[in-house]
């Protein structure tokens, strides 16, 4: 039985990720295209919201990735701090811009939906506000990565920021709930399935969510591979200069 820590070896990671990446990417494309077509063209219009409701097939998965992307960065940062695997730090670095873009996509699609439905592009609703704050956290994290030259120092400091930031992001979520009443609807998917949306919407949505997860995985793997190659290149150039 091979341990998961084997993939902390950059060489092993490159080999395995290189082998699986096209499959994951293909599956992601299949799920995203399939789910979106299914969602857009083969579901009925909502009786009140008309066809605008279909933006949820982009909005919900993006929002999910935006939050879980930060969670993934937190886990990767913890692994880096505890076990000092460079791949882990680079994966956290690679995930940040993806998560940030997903946050932005969720905000923008929400605004596009909110304009006809709520009559406003933006409301200081707890969910919207906490997403904006999450966006600021991503921004700060990426800025800190870019500001520091030494890669190990940068990895350490951003990990510390990610851990402290997670606590404060969590606090902000509840503080914002306390601060204003919500306009945004609550969750309509749950494991017990009591207040769920109708299956005719649920199944394409789940397909889209799976597609987004795979898409996130693809981008993170691709970007991590790029980071590893960039670092190898730097090492090669440094060696060339020495010799």
């Amino acid at each position: 039985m091979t341990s998961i820590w084997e993939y902390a070896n950059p060489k092993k990671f490159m080999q395995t990720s290189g082998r699986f990446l096209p499959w994951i990417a293909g599956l992601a494309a299949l799920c995203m295209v399939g789910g979106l077509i299914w969602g857009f063209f083969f579901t009925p219009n909502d009786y009140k919201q008309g066809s605008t409701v279909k933006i949820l097939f982009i909005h919900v998965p993006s929002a999910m990735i935006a939050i879980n992307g930060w969670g993934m960065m937190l886990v990767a940062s913890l692994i880096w701090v505890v076990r000092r695997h460079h791949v882990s730090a680079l994966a956290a670095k690679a995930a940040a811009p993806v998560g940030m873009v997903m946050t932005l996509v969720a905000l923008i699609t929400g605004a596009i939906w909110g304009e006809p439905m709520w009559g406003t592009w933006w409301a200081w609703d707890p969910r919207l506000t906490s997403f904006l704050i999450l966006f600021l956290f991503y921004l700060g994290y990426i800025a800190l990565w870019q500001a520091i030259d030494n890669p190990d120092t940068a990895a350490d400091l951003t990990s510390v920021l990610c851990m402290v930031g997670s606590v404060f992001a969590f606090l902000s979520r509840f503080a914002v709930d306390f601060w204003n009443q919500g306009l945004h609807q609550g969750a309509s998917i749950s494991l017990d399935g009591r207040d769920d949306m109708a299956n005719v919407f649920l199944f394409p949505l789940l397909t889209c969510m799976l597609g987004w997860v795979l898409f996130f995985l693809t981008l993170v793997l691709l970007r991590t591979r790029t980071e590893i190659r960039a670092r190898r290149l730097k090492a090669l150039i440094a060696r060339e200069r020495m010799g």
Partner: protein
Amino acid sequence: MIGLLLRDLRLAVRAGGGFGLGLAFFLIVVVLVPLGVGPKADLLALIAPGILWVAALLACLLSLDRIFALDHEDGSLDLLATAPIPLEGVVTIKALAHWLTTGLPLTLASPLFGLLLHLPGPAYPWLMVSLGLGTPALSVIGTFGAALTVGLKRGGLLLSLLVLPLYVPTLIFGAEAVRRGAEGLSATTPLVLLAAITLGSIAALPFGSAAALRINLR
């Protein structure tokens, strides 16, 4: 440790720039807001709690990069890191010195600035209490940000970007307490939550700050 505290306080008072500058900045923001939104008393009274808290937050932010930057430049930070007292203690003392030179004067002077913004009468005690409870958290969180960016040349702007999102909960509860005070409601809940954030930050964040400093001084 007390010697370090006294040294930092003395430096802040005598070197100029640190002490008093925060207060002056607070005053300027408070003067600029009515110039921007118009002199209507009822409008100002409505936004005064939020403005006062945001101004306090910005005034705190202004002096953050001085916490470690000067000591880093002349090398005394390295000496402090190798000194027999734990780095966590150093960080806490630095945050305390920062609070004594910015947070405390702001809290004491805040009723005066509240007057300028037509803050309703019942809100004054809550303004002072909430600032007194909340500004230590601002100092401690800011020290963490300063520790993260100490080695950077253009750390100032990055520091604000890192620290301001961390200030969100403190700002919300602090301003909410004053607002409830102004409307004559009970401000206990936000004050308790504010105190919780302050105490939690004081208890936990020095470890993060010290870790960041060690990484930066490596």
